[in-house]
């Protein structure tokens, strides 16, 4: 069997694919966080909890209502988006003029409550969620066996990220969004309903988290803590990528997933800290992140 530095190649490829799968989740989640921060000035600590609820919704849909994966892929993000809009109207809209700290504390508290609720209902142990029909099994690529579901997650998240990028950078709605992010008051004085856009942006951002949650459900155990495990790394990804560029955020998410995967093979001891080491280095060299605009 062929090897690289004593590592069997199939194992290496396997970790790389797993890294890309994780990177796909990082990309989708950090994209939502960056868009929300740009528009609402809120560091959305509830993002991980809403990702978890996306996965829980998928599981509950199947368990209680018999609604399958493909329907939940649409229904869960939409419901999470609506939950987000309610959160924005009830809680967040009062915080925009205050220091970032208030938004962070509010959404952190919210995350604890949502996680607590689901922990109370379902306990901490994860629930298994079956891989949907058609995506089970492997594809033989010749040099490795690629699990179909992992390929699907990578592909789906790439498509979602590209659509988001196109919407923000190339459409009229996206121009409104960029303008409102840069100068909300003036944008409103041009006749654009900025408060409505802010509300929809939050709904969209957390909807992305919900979608990531459904995609994650068959790939991991669906449990109340799956969000809080992930979100800290995702915040590090946002810090490394910087807030300036959509594509930058996506590329950063995928690359850090890959780097983590490589670390698991070559230096397993640092694999869970490598993202934070990179964050520290990036902060020393470029405090506004790799793709961030220097203020």
């Amino acid at each position, binding site marked *: 069997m062929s090897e690289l530095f004593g590592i069997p190649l199939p194992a290496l490829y396997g970790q790389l694919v797993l890294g890309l799968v994780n990177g796909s989740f990082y990309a989708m989640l950090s994209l939502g966080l960056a868009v929300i921060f740009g528009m609402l000035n809120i560091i959305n600590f509830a993002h991980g909890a809403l990702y978890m609820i996306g996965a829980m919704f998928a599981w509950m849909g199947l368990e209680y209502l018999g609604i399958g994966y493909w329907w939940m892929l649409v229904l869960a993000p939409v419901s999470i988006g609506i939950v987000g809009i309610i959160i924005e109207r009830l809680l967040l809209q009062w915080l925009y003029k205050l220091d970032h700290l208030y938004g962070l504390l509010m959404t952190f508290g919210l995350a604890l409550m949502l996680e607590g609720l689901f922990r109370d209902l379902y306990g901490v142990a994860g629930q298994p969620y079956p891989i949907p029909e058609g995506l089970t099994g492997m594809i033989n690529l010749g040099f490795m066996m690629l699990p179909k579901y992992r390929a699907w997650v990578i592909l789906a998240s790439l498509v979602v990220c590209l659509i988001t990028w196109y919407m923000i950078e190339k459409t009229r709605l996206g121009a409104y969004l*960029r303008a409102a*992010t840069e100068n909300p008051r*003036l944008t409103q*004085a*041009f*006749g*654009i309903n*900025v408060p409505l856009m802010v509300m929809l942006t939050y709904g969209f951002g957390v909807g992305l988290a919900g979608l990531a949650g459904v995609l994650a459900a068959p790939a991991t155990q669906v449990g109340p803590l799956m969000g809080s495990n992930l979100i800290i790394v995702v915040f590090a990804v946002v810090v490394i990528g910087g807030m300036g560029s959509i594509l930058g955020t996506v590329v950063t998410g995928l690359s850090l997933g890959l780097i983590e995967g490589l670390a698991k093979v070559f230096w397993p001891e640092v694999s869970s800290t490598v993202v934070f080491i990179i964050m520290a280095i990036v902060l020393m060299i470029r405090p506004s992140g790799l793709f961030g605009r220097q203020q």
Partner: protein
Amino acid sequence: MSSSEYLRVSDLHAFYAESHILHGMDFTVRRGECVSLLGRNGAGRTTTLRALMGLTGRRTGSIMINGREVINMPPHRIAQLGVGYCPEERGIYSGLSCEENLMLPPRVSSGGVCIEEIYEMFPNLKERRHSQGTRLSGGEQQMLAMARILRTGARLLLLDEISEGLAPVIVQKLAEIITELKKRDYTILLVEQNFRFAAPLADRMCIVEHGEVVAEIAQHELAEKQPLLQEFLGV
């Protein structure tokens, strides 16, 4: 009260947090008229325009635009009534290209200047339409800030210090454009530091001091009221 009155501001007070900036502004602008607010720095002219757009803090009093009370309306609703605002700092977005800046404000009524005519009026903007908005020169940015509100069909234009810091040839061009807009029956409220720019364009001038209008001079009274101007503006 004239039926052709387009903007009536009565006893307008405006605040930024605790600071009380406008102390009962009173003035009117008739349809198709160009009125200039003159005054020293800090007199409250820019704040008046911002208050009209709903961009200050608390406001009291009354602002009637084309017969509608707007004092409690949010900025986007005021803009949708047909008000175009060109801010003092120009407000060109760095995250948008020149053309995206131009196309940003949604149409508020039919009859705006069409894009071909805008590019005819401002050929530079066509040449630089793919450049980042803030890469344009100061003069180009000012043209862009003006052009952007002409496209929307707004009939009341609030122009804040549009001649500030620009080369004489560009100031001349802006004066030509305002003359043309007057011919097309636009209603214009012009805030200006540059008396020489405003004097020939304005049908009337309101002199603002300490957040209120202290004197009003019609175009034909300019010569006789020169001493008054001297006293208030030092021109």
